[in-house]
């Protein structure tokens, strides 16, 4: 964003760098970057105070195309690099852009620990269920049976569900969105930014070259109403063209079930109301999937705890308040010293 001088609100396009975008035509990443630029603009953040950190992959190219600070690191390690940045300068807004391979295959451990520590990062995971950049091998989120260059007869692995993983790691903010739903994605990104702690935003992203239409069963227009459940805190969990279906507690067990609502079904007030601070509910929402259920989208969980960076710096401040910052000369003399005189 070289040359920005006026403090006026920046437009989405002001967050575009001068680099020509090199994603494939039609790639879902184009839609995502638009949403990111819009969110940054609406958040009224400053480009100079914003850092995008990424690993390697198509997703990880994102920082090049944003007019903020950007660090395209190495495969899988973005959360670790971002942790160093955020701990060093907590005033920076630090975002991580990663893919299902970058973030959950080679980088799974850093993802786990970033979420566990609850360091204040916004982690955007572009899940296309494939390794795009390396030309289409299956990934840990690819469905069983995925044919790819490394699994010509179909993969035999059970995929991980990223949101479930996030809960297992102790994540305090878990949200899901779809690449092309800008109107929904922008608010999610803004919520993630507002959450002081690790915010994981899982984005279903269409890799048109190697895994085209992987999410069509719920993203296609004809399936959207029946298989997308957009959750909102305090609102009933309704979906269907006219909100004629909903979720409620399955009586006598710890599960959810789909019910018809209104005429011929249960009364609207009996539908479960979304409570984004209810971890058990959020975990159930993370697990349900078509065809039995819709996919739950939006902020599934947000229940903040003190962030790791806040705790680290609070501890340093306390220690300094207690003993003061010693000058080096004093530090050197820790323990006993003695003097050897000239020509003793």
């Amino acid at each position: 964003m070289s040359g920005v001088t006026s403090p006026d609100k920046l437009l989405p396009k002001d967050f575009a760098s001068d680099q020509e975008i090199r994603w494939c035509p039609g790639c879902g990443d184009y839609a995502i970057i638009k949403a990111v630029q819009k969110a940054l603009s609406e958040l009224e953040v400053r480009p100079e105070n914003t850092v995008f950190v990424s690993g390697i992959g198509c997703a990880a190219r994102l920082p090049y195309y944003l007019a903020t600070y950007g660090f395209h690191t190495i495969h899988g390690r973005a959360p670790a690099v971002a942790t160093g940045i955020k701990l060093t300068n907590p005033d920076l807004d630090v975002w991580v852009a990663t893919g299902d391979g970058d973030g959950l295959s080679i980088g799974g451990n850093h993802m786990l620990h970033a979420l566990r520590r609850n360091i204040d990062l916004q982690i955007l995971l572009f899940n296309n269920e494939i390794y795009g950049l390396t030309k289409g091998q299956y990934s840990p989120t690819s469905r069983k049976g995925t044919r790819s260059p490394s699994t010509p007869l179909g993969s035999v692995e059970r995929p991980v569900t990223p949101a479930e993983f996030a809960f297992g790691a102790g994540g305090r903010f878990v949200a899901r969105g779809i690449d092309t739903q800008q109107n929904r994605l922008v608010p999610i990104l803004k919520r993630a930014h507002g959450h002081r702690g690790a915010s994981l935003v899982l984005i279903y992203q269409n890799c048109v070259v190697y895994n085209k239409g992987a999410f069509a069963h719920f993203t296609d227009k004809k399936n959207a109403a029946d298989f997308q459940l957009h959750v909102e805190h305090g609102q009933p969990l309704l979906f269907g063209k006219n909100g004629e279906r909903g979720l409620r507690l399955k009586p006598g067990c710890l599960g959810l079930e789909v019910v018809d609502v209104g005429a011929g079904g249960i009364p609207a007030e009996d539908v479960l109301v979304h409570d984004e601070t209810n971890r058990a509910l959020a975990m159930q929402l993370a697990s349900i999937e078509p065809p039995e259920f819709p996919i739950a989208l939006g902020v599934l969980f947000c229940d903040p705890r003190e962030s790791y960076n806040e705790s680290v710096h609070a501890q340093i401040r306390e220690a300094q308040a207690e003993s003061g910052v010693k000058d080096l000369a004093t530090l050197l003399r820790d323990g006993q010293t003695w003097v050897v005189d000239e020509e003793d």
Partner: protein
Amino acid sequence: MGAESKQTDPPLEDAHQVQEAVVIRFAGDSGDGMQIAGAQFTLETALLGEDVATFPDYPAEIRAPAGSEFGVSAFQLQFGSMDISTPGDELDVLIVMNPAALKTNLPDLRVGGTVIVDTEAFTERNLAKAGYSTNPLEEESLAQHELIQLNISHMAAEAVAEFDLSQKEASRSRNMWTLGLALWLYDRDRRATVEWLRQKFSARPEIAEANVAALNAGHAFGETAEMPSSAVGHGMGRAHMMPGEYRVATGTHTITLGLLAGARSAGLEIFLGSYPITPASPVLHMMANMKNQGVITFQAEDEIAAVCSAIGASYAGALGVTSSSGPGIALKTEAIGLAISAELPLIIVNTQRAGPSTGMPTKVEQSDLYQAVFGRNADSPLPVIAASTPSDCFAVAVEAVRLATKYMTPVFVLTDSYLANAAEPWRLPNLEAVPDLSVVFLSESEGGSALQRRNPHTLARSWVKPGTAGLENRTGGLEKDVRTGHISYDPDNHQYMTDTRAAKIAGIGADIPLQEVSVGAESGRLALVGWGSTFGPIRQATKRARERGVDVSHVHVRYLNPFPPNLGELLGGYEKILVPEMNSGQLVTMLRSEYLLPAETLSKVTGQPFKVVEIMDAITAILET
């Protein structure tokens, strides 16, 4: 330039007074407190003005079964009025708390040396655990030594009887009794130890006082008992130390303080990203203890995250440091390449240990030089420097900060488990002499790419701190256009950038001190060329050989990449070159390649430091051929 020695060279007439030093070793079970006894003996000795060098050697096991051979923990020190730069080849005095300690340590006692044993521990059970079928105290095997049998356990228990201690606590005072006796034998004070005990056990004064009582009792025993005169030593008189203020310090203390001093001079915060590993963890621990100094320490989930967090810290404008040992360093090599490509400062401290693989984690080796210099994918040059003594770690750490920030590069600092743990009198550095390392971040865009503005002299790019308006930029591990900093696959650009990275590091050669000769002449029949913690034994061997009229010099190399510019010419002045290393011959490979000189290797890979005599024998051998 070799490592600075804390010693002034002693006047010539002193030079042959080898007897002016004593080597003593405390050995017992891991739980017997031998490390503490040794450390306190060291402190009292240093406070006397004598020179001292130590060698703690402890087992890999946390608490090995009591009485087992592999559970023996030992602390050796050499002290005296001469230039003490090694913990000594052979023991003059061995103090053992049980049969296993006797068994494993006796071979190192010189003929005629004194061995003091705690007889109470020589039970049948303990003898069996140590693999003795008969009691060695009753045998010929000790005939060549002066054997002093004392029921230390019993006497220590008596000394603390008046305190209200559990039996376990009471038995833990044996080490203080033993220390008291040892201090008496060599006529040393107890004050510092008493002070230390009272501070350490300030929460439990009865324990402090019981230990003081045991200490005093051991001392009193020496006074009153008839100790064989051969065992009784004396103060050696002050060593010829450089004037200044001193403390006892290990390489862990000095390197940590050196990093802090460097960072303060540079005006930077320190961020340490690390993951525990033997023997490198103490650096993490000591840094973690400096939270009140504003130091951020981050115990990462693994070594990769550790180095990456440090890179992130440097990216954000702090001094990123990461510390580990060989196996952990291996995991960092990919990320170090990123720091090279993105041209970010980073200090990597490798406290080396014996390998390969897990190897012998608590044992010393200096076999990661190849890894530091060559151990990355692609052409990825970086500076490598090594500390030679515990004291030297301070200056090396400061120098690492200078190179990392001035040249925007990762810097390898090599130490080893010996340097990390060994204590010696440390002449406190003159802080005014720490060079001004002030870092200037780029603060405004002067056209062109912020990232790719290079200092024409150092070839270093400028350091841009996120948060600076107008300098927003994108960087990473892909090749960058020389002008714009954008991704570039242009063939000529890659050649240019590769050459520039190489030239930047090579250029450091002109910015470091010329190589000096540590001991001896600037040319001659033989140069011993060393690096790292072999400094002490090479120095001693060279001095002793020269005393005997042998034409040998000692050259100790701190700058391992790039080499000092005069090194080739200097080495060319010797007929023969011998490179003692605690590896299979790594520096020697580099010297031969760089200068085409027929340097030979003297390799020792036992997990133990060189003995002086081993190097002296090698001098004799090479000069005979």
